[in-house]
Structures are given as structure tokens and as C-alpha cells.
């Protein structure tokens, strides 16, 4: 690991401090009321996972935090600053980065352009060498069209490009969806390494077996509300409940 990156890690994570506070978050798609008062916290340096079935409101929660959903109510505080009324570009510049479920790789851009697209919003982002250290495949495919990559490589690219920006708070939406087990394992290693680097990560996952390898805490979302929450240490004791919640 390059020394510079390691030196910046503590600055990213003032361990334990509350970095995100979501209170009574409601959101709508047109006339459809999707979130009905979501409440949760994320502390600096931890990996928090939102679990839940399809359509529970997990992705909408991330999009609401990112300012992508137009009609929202409630309160979202990032580093004690209210961001409910901020536009998504301003939210990104505060240090929140979003990796969408559909990956959002741009077909008109090659891998290098996709990787360099998000602007650096603050100091402390990973240098390219370190990103290639995390995702060696990308280095070999820099001049390929972004959408010509395999699903796993596209997911790596989607995560890699937000690591450059200096954002300290990463929101990853279903990063393992549709990927082969070996790639899922690689993504898991990457998330664990990012956590060690001091990134705070809010993860949306349906695959709680994967989530259990990286998460510190879990919140279960159902019908647009948080219905339960527990730490990784309490996971084993909550497995039956979790199976019921997730229908697995």
C-alpha cells in the first residue's frame, strides 16, 4: 500500500463519530409513496448494510440521500449538515459518492474516460496506482469501451471511479448483483480493504451472506420503513428473523 494513501486513511475516518443521520425520510415516485419514515444512522469508518426484499425501498433510500429523488421529506444530515434541500451535485461535493445498481457505465466513453469522469471533490481520493492495485483488470482494459467489459469488470469500474473523488462516504447499491461467486469474493475483499482505508460505506444488499462478510451493522427495510437493526455480532442470534424478513 502506498504510504500516502495510508497516511490519509485516519483523516477519512474519525472512527465512531456519527457521519449520517436519516430521520423520518419519506420519498415519492410521482404519486407512489415509497419511503414512509426511514430512520437510521451511520458512523464514520463502518460498513452499514440495508437489507430487504425487492421493492422494499433500499435503493430509493440511497437515491434520496444522494438527492436524486425529487419528492422527499424528512431530514438527512451529513457531518451535521442538513442536505435535504441540496442538489445531487452539491451533495457529491460534500463527500458522498454513489455507485448505482445498474452500474451506470457510459457506453460512449472508454474505460479510462469512465474512470476519470467523476471530478475530484476533495483531497484524499485514491491515486490511480492504488485503484489499479485493487482492480488490476481495469488497467489492461483502459482503452476498451466501458460497456464492452464483463459484468464483474463493469462493477469494479463503477466502484473504482468513485474512489478517486476524495469522497469519504460511499453508497454501493447491490454491488454483487448478477456476478459470479469469484467476483463477489473479490468485491468483498475490496470493500474490506476500503473499510481498512477509512472509508465509510452504506451498502444495499439482498445477499446477506455476502453482506455478513463485510458489514458492521444491518438495518432491515420493509415497505419503506426500517423494521429492525442489529450489529454483526448479533447476526447469528437474528438469523431466523432475518430469514423471515428476506423470505429466504
Amino acid at each position, binding site marked *: 500500500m502506498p504510504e500516502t494513501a495510508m497516511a490519509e486513511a485516519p483523516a477519512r475516518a474519525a472512527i465512531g463519530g456519527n457521519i449520517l443521520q436519516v430521520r423520518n425520510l419519506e420519498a415519492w415516485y410521482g404519486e407512489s409513496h415509497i419511503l414512509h419514515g426511514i430512520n437510521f444512522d451511520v458512523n464514520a469508518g463502518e460498513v452499514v448494510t440495508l437489507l430487504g426484499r425487492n421493492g422494499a425501498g433500499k435503493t430509493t433510500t440511497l437515491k434520496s440521500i444522494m438527492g436524486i429523488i425529487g419528492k422527499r421529506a424528512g431530514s438527512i444530515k451529513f457531518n451535521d449538515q442538513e442536505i435535504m434541500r441540496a442538489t445531487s*451535485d452539491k451533495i457529491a461535493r460534500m463527500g458522498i459518492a454513489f455507485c448505482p445498481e445498474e452500474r451506470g457505465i*457510459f457506453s*460512449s466513453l472508454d474505460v479510462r474516460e469512465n474512470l476519470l*469522469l467523476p471530478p475530484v471533490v476533495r483531497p484524499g481520493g485514491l491515486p490511480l496506482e492504488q485503484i489499479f492495485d485493487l482492480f488490476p483488470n481495469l488497467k489492461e482494459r483502459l482503452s476498451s469501451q466501458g460497456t464492452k467489459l464483463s459484468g464483474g469488470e463493469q462493477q469494479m469500474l463503477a466502484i473504482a471511479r468513485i474512489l478517486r473523488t476524495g469522497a469519504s462516504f460511499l453508497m454501493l447499491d447491490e454491488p454483487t448483483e448478477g456476478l459470479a461467486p469469484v467476483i463477489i469474493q473479490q468485491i468483498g475483499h475490496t470493500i474490506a480493504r476500503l473499510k481498512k482505508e477509512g472509508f465509510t460505506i452504506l451498502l444495499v444488499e439482498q445477499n446477506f451472506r455476502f453482506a455478513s462478510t463485510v458489514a458492521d451493522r444491518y438495518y432491515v427495510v420493509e415497505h419503506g420503513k426500517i423494521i429492525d437493526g442489529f450489529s454483526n455480532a448479533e447476526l447469528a442470534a437474528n438469523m431466523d428473523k432475518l430469514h423471515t424478513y428476506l423470505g429466504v
Partner: protein
Amino acid sequence: MQALYAQLLVGLINGSFYALLSLGLAVIFGMLNIINFAHGALYMMGAFVAYFLLNLGGVNYWWALLLAPIIVGIFGMILERTMLQWLTGLDHLYGLLLTFGIALIVQGVFQNYFGSSGLPYAIPDQLKGGMNLGFMFLPVYRGWVVIFSLVVCLATWFLIEKTRLGAYLRAATENPTLVRAFGINVPRMITLTYGLGVGLAALAGVLSAPINQVRPLMGADLIIVVFAVVVIGGMGSIMGSIITGFALGVIEGLTKYFYPEASNTVVFVLMVVVLLVKPTGLTGRAA
């Protein structure tokens, strides 16, 4: 033979205007998803601004080449901020109708004050005269228009295809929401892009003024052909617009020489053929 070369030159000059205008249309369509029917009127405004600068302010052609695109570009950005931005997400038809209405109003206002006949705009002293190339006589100004247009078109292509700013533009064309979530102020970028597209039209207007005179309906005559050029090249395709613009100008010129009766319709015949064979245009991508 002299006549053939002369028609080829006329074709290249027309192609220069087609390329500059269709390039602006392609940039605007790619980014705003708006079929900018006001483009011809904005081209005409570029010529009129050059005329006003010269006759009211004593500002020469060279400064007009810089100032007219900026002034008309700012006018375009005001249009985008006050009207076009509200059409985001709506069907193309709304943008087409709004910009068509804007074109009629702008042209109507100019026609009201200046009539339909042309106002003279002199060729700058440095570009007067001509050169005997042996096989033809080349008026210097016309040669300048072709070369300068080509340089501007290639510079615009480079800006969009090879720079970081261009990558933002291309990405925002695909997924503006995500680009904004990366921290890029997409609405401001859209406004500037519209200003750039309009500025290109105004630049074509200034270049055209010494050749075609300054007339309120000069854009209305041209815009239908330019739309055919954009359709043939492929909506939103930058290089497609440039190549098709010049190529169709030349084809039109050749048709004037070999079969003059078809010179006004050849572009539209080609458009129909392209739409039948490759509806996305020669260089356009399928949606």
C-alpha cells in the same frame, strides 16, 4: 471543366454552412434532446449582429467573428434558461414546436424592421480578390470560409470527443442524473452547450454575410436542408454532421453541374434513401 470546379467550390461553401449548422444542431440534440428549429433564426441573428457591429459600432469583420457568436450565444443561453429547460423530459415535439415558434417570432421581428431584401456586408480587405489556381479562379473569401469552417468543425469535434469537458458532455447525454450525482453541475453544462451550439450557428451567419448578404429569412431558407443533413448524418453524431455537411454540399454542387433540375431536391432524396436503409443515419447509433 471550369464550370464544374466552380460548382464544386459553391458546394464546398454551402457544405461549410451545412456542417457548422448541423454540428450545432447535433450538439444541442445530443445534450438537450431538443430539435432546435430556431437554429436558422439564430444563424440569421449572427449575420445581423455582425452587420450592427460594423454599421453602428464600427467593429470590423474579424472582431465580429468573435463577438457575434458570443452575443448570440448569450441570447441562446437566456432562451434555454427561461424556456427550453422547462421541456426537459417531455416529448421532442414540444421542443420542436417551441423553437419553431421562437424562429417565427425572431424572423418576424427582423422582417418587420428590415424587410425581406438583403443588406450588404462587405468582404474584409484582407480577403478580397482571388487566386488563379490554373484549373479555376478561387475567390479568397470563399476559400477562407471553407478552411475556417473546417477548422472550427474539427476543433468542436476535438472538444467533444477528446477532452475531459467533452467526456462530461457525452456522459450527460447518456445519463444526466448520474453525471450530476458525481458532482457536475449538469443544468449549467446544458446551458453552456446550448450557447455553444447557438454560437456555431451565429459564426456561420457571420461567415455567410459577405457572400449571401444579411437577410431576415436567410436562416429559414437553409434550415430545412440542414435538418436533412442532420438526419442523413445521424442525429447527435458530431463527426457524422461534419462529414455529411461537407459531402452533401459537394453532392449538391455536382448535381447543379450534371442535372441542375435536381439540385434542390437531391439532399431530400438522399435523406429518404438513408431513412429507408439506415434510419439512425449514416453514423448514428441505434437508441
